[in-house]
């Protein structure tokens, strides 16, 4: 049996290869890379592999256990789905960017120490930037810059935390870290920025809708879910995560309900579902962490499916705003069907990962968090599950007649839809054996739980239908809705202007004061101060010598001129020297030396 290669190496070499190739060969190579990675995945054995000595540190590039394996398998599978979805366009930024992204995510998941984790963590940003640039519009270019700005900031925060953690003797072990001291807190925040926490995570709904139709599939999969994996390994059971998760699970829903761009709606709903996972990490019990991993798997699948469906709509119509779309079920029936499967999976996920997180929250007696989960589940179904397919494929005939999605996209969507249904309907066979804590019993799915989940979804659907009928649902307006991204989109330039005005004002004042006054004074003193002093000293002497006022004035002018250029007659220099010697003699005499 051949030995397994490091999965990230396959993706990274593949990305480099794909970047160098052209035409059909590039398409074949891009598809082959995740297929090879999937085959390689079957060869991986639990344990610690691929150790490297770097300076005084030992880097572990392959820690394979239950917790990392499930995310590794998920990422490898999604890399295949994403590449299959984008392969037809043969856009090198999408293909190489997607593979680079997958390589970075698998590298981060396999990392067994914090230093190699940091290395792959930062590489994730590069993959995302390529997926944004692949859209090749001015707006996507600017979004890529904003993405870079936020993630460089996040990287600096994480690096500062890591350095402080190491300096405090925390070690490089990528294991549970106690949230005490500045180092762990900064690392916690650094992870949180990638996890799209409230305010600091505004980059996600800001930039995802600007990515290429296929690139966003990689983006929706890798960055936040890597952060979820890392947080579940380093900070499980931190109570503050419960409330961060609650804010993430609820607040973005309000935006998802009023936002016009359907990919932005999905992005807000993505944050909402990641919030549910963060709650699971906050509870931190084995059941909750199992629920988090299961929820991550199902969520990645149905979110990718929904993003792919809207991506196909963009490919065929060039539109993604709810206000421009409608009635596409006639032109794109299969895409519509797959989108609806994605929506149904939102409900079905309530029987899998969400049920486990909800059970863990209930077991801990966290009533408020439990209610937030209820609201988050119902709201996500309305915002992403009902509104997105309704706005794009039904509602009205917007007069758009277009082709069905291309075959490769239909295959990618069909495959993902099948996986969604299998994961939710047969979790005991395909999901539960691979959870981070396989020994922990999964709560049995009783008829009562099934009716409760279905009632919740149907109640939400009834509210949606009634509100649409009565015209109470927020209208699809072409508008911008301010959120946390305002801080850097408006705050960034404002900060620049503030810094420009305040610091440059200080600079100007200092320049005027120092160069204009002090330095000028010193220059003046050395230029004309000493000649003036000499004149002052000589005037009484000239008076004693009986010169009249006119003569004294002439002498003063002559002395001043000579003193300024340092050109004295020898007699005057000798006279000054005699005076100086006399003064020195007097000084020595008086001081008794």
């Amino acid at each position: 049996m051949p030995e397994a290669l490091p999965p990230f190496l396959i993706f990274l070499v593949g990305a480099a290869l794909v970047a160098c190739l052209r035409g059909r060969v590039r398409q074949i190579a891009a598809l082959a890379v995740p297929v090879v990675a999937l085959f390689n995945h079957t060869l991986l054995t639990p344990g610690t592999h691929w150790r490297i000595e770097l300076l005084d540190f030992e880097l572990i590039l392959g820690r394979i256990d239950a917790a990392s394996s499930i995310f590794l398998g998920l990422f490898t599978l999604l890399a295949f789905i994403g590449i299959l979805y984008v392969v037809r366009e043969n856009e090198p930024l999408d293909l190489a960017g997607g593979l680079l992204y997958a390589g970075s995510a698998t590298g981060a998941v396999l990392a067994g120490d914090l230093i190699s984790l940091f290395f792959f963590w930062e590489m994730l940003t590069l993959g995302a930037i390529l997926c944004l640039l692949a859209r090749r519009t001015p707006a996507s270019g600017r979004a890529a810059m904003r993405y870079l700005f936020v993630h460089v900031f996040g990287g600096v925060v994480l690096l500062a935390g890591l350095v402080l953690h190491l300096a405090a003797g925390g070690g490089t072990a990528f294991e549970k870290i106690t949230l005490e001291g500045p180092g762990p807190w900064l690392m916690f925040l650094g992870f949180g920025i990638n996890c799209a926490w409230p305010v600091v995570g505004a980059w996600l709904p800001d930039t995802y809708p600007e990515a290429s139709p296929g690139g966003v599939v990689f983006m929706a999969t890798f960055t936040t879910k890597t952060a979820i994996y890392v947080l579940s390994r380093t900070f499980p059971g931190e109570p503050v995560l419960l409330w961060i998760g609650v804010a993430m699970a609820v607040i973005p829903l309000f935006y998802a309900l009023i936002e016009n761009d359907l990919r932005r709606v999905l992005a807000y709903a993505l944050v909402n579902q990641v919030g549910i996972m963060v709650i699971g990490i906050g509870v931190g019990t084995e059941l909750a962490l199992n629920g988090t991993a299961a929820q991550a798997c199902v969520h990645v699948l149905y979110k990718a499916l929904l993003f792919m469906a809207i991506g196909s709509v963009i490919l065929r119509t060039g539109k993604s705003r709810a206000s421009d779309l409608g009635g596409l079920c006639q032109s794109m029936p299969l895409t519509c069907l797959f989108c609806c499967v994605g929506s149904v999976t939102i409900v079905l996920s309530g029987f899998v990962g969400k049920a486990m997180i909800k059970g863990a929250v209930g077991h801990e007696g966290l009533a408020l968090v439990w209610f937030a989960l209820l609201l988050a589940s119902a709201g996500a179904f309305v915002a992403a599950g009902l509104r997105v397919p309704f706005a794009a494929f039904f509602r009205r005939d917007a007069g758009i007649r277009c082709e069905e999605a291309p075959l490769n996209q239909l295959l990618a969507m069909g495959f993902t839809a099948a996986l969604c249904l299998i994961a939710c309907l047969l979790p005991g066979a395909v999901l539960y054996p691979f959870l981070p804590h396989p020994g922990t019993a999964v709560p049995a799915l009783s008829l009562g739980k099934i009716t409760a989940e279905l009632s919740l979804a149907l109640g939400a659907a009834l509210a949606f239908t009634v509100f649409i009928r009565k015209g109470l649902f927020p209208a699809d307006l072409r508008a911008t809705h301010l959120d946390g991204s305002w801080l850097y989109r408006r705050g960034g330039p404002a900060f620049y202007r503030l810094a420009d005005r305040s610091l440059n004002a200080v600079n100007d004042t200092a320049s005027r004061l120092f160069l204009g006054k002090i330095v000028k004074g010193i220059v003046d003193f050395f230029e004309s101060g000493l000649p003036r002093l000499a004149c002052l000293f000589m005037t009484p002497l000239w008076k004693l010598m009986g010169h009249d006022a006119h003569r004294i004035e002439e002498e003063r002018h002559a002395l001043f001129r000579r003193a300024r250029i340092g050109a004295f007659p020898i007699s005057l220099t000798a006279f000054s020297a005699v005076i100086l010697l006399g003064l020195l003699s007097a000084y020595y005499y008086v001081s008794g030396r």
Partner: protein
Amino acid sequence: MAAPHSPTPDQTAWYLHPGLPRRIVIGLAASLVALVLVDLFLAFSGSGKTPYFPWEKWPAFSAIAGFVGSALLVLVARFCLRPLVKREESYYDAPSHDTGGNPDA
């Protein structure tokens, strides 16, 4: 890229049938009633779920929570959040041409 537009949108499509929304509401309401009945049966037969919180035992709790929760989200989003955060679409535009995520803008 740009899709061809038919000059007259088709008003006879099945999903635009005037009676459809009413039928959907009736269908959803009937399904909910059926689920609540199952819930009630489970509650009385004692074979229902083992709840963590007392309100989970209340019949139709989930259905009402789903409806009220969603209604609350929609109303707050429309009447509280949107007036606060809504700006013109070109709010963030630099001097020229940000399309707000849409190449067709």
